[in-house]
């Protein structure tokens, strides 16, 4: 079981209550597909991913980005049992979607950078550490059912 300090709990709840899911989600996924283009292999039916502008304007990317961020909600609401919260999603990503779990970290790194850009100076080292710890637990849980 993961131990969370009061600061970490408060920070995670605070961040997720403040961000606009319809902006941050799409921006994070789009950024991931631009910065790590090999991730596009999982989005063959998403249409035009030809360049950064096309990716950022792609409505399917935007929709999926929002979906992913709402998926993180589950962990935000169940911080004391993230592993079981994502058991089913882990199986989905492994058995059906066949996503290399290394990609989860690439996406969460992009999410970190998008949130940092939004929060500016308020995204201190301590806030970053808490946010990354949370995302690391999510990433680990999503990879747990792979075999």
């Amino acid at each position, binding site marked *: 079981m993961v131990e969370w300090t009061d600061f970490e709990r408060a920070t995670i709840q605070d961040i997720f209550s403040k961000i606009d899911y319809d902006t941050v989600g799409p921006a994070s996924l789009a950024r991931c597909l631009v910065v790590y283009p090999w991730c596009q292999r999982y989005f063959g039916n998403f249409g035009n991913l030809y360049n*950064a502008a096309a990716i950022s304007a792609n409505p399917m990317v935007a929709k999926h980005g929002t979906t992913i961020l709402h998926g993180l909600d589950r962990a935000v609401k169940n911080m004391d049992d993230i592993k079981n919260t994502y058991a089913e999603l882990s199986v989905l990503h492994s058995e059906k979607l066949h996503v290399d779990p290394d990609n989860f970290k690439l996406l969460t790194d992009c999410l970190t*950078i998008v949130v*940092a*850009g939004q929060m500016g100076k308020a995204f201190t080292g301590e806030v*970053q550490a808490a946010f990354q710890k949370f995302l690391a637990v999510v990433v680990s849980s999503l990879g747990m059912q792979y075999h």
Partner: protein
Amino acid sequence: MLSPRERKLIAEIWERLTPVAEDIGSDALLRMFVTFPGTKTYFAHLDISPRSAHLLSHGKKIVLAIAEGAKDISQLTVTLAPLQTLHAYQLRIDPTNFKLFSHCVLVSLACHMREDFTPAAHAAIDKYLSAFAAVLAEKYR
């Protein structure tokens, strides 16, 4: 692989950051120490508390080296030759840490540049920092 346009973008961005090298550098270092505490082991001999003289001067040094390399990326091996030797024989920082620091530099840039840190700029700089780190570790073995 860096396109000519990306090389230009990278050079421009780092030139603009040179006046605030101390702020960016020390911010990135501090983020790294807090987020990845194992990295502090390389600085046991320095005072790395926030706004300390060591942290500021060290951060400045690192960012200025990155900015210098950005001026002509094709010459990285030449520009970084002395730093290669320093890191290989004296500092001997495990190269995994270069990745951690690069990530924190990107976060610092995001906080500093806000919307100007576009996905394209992010991609270009991430690639540059990876190349920089690879060259830095070349003399390790």
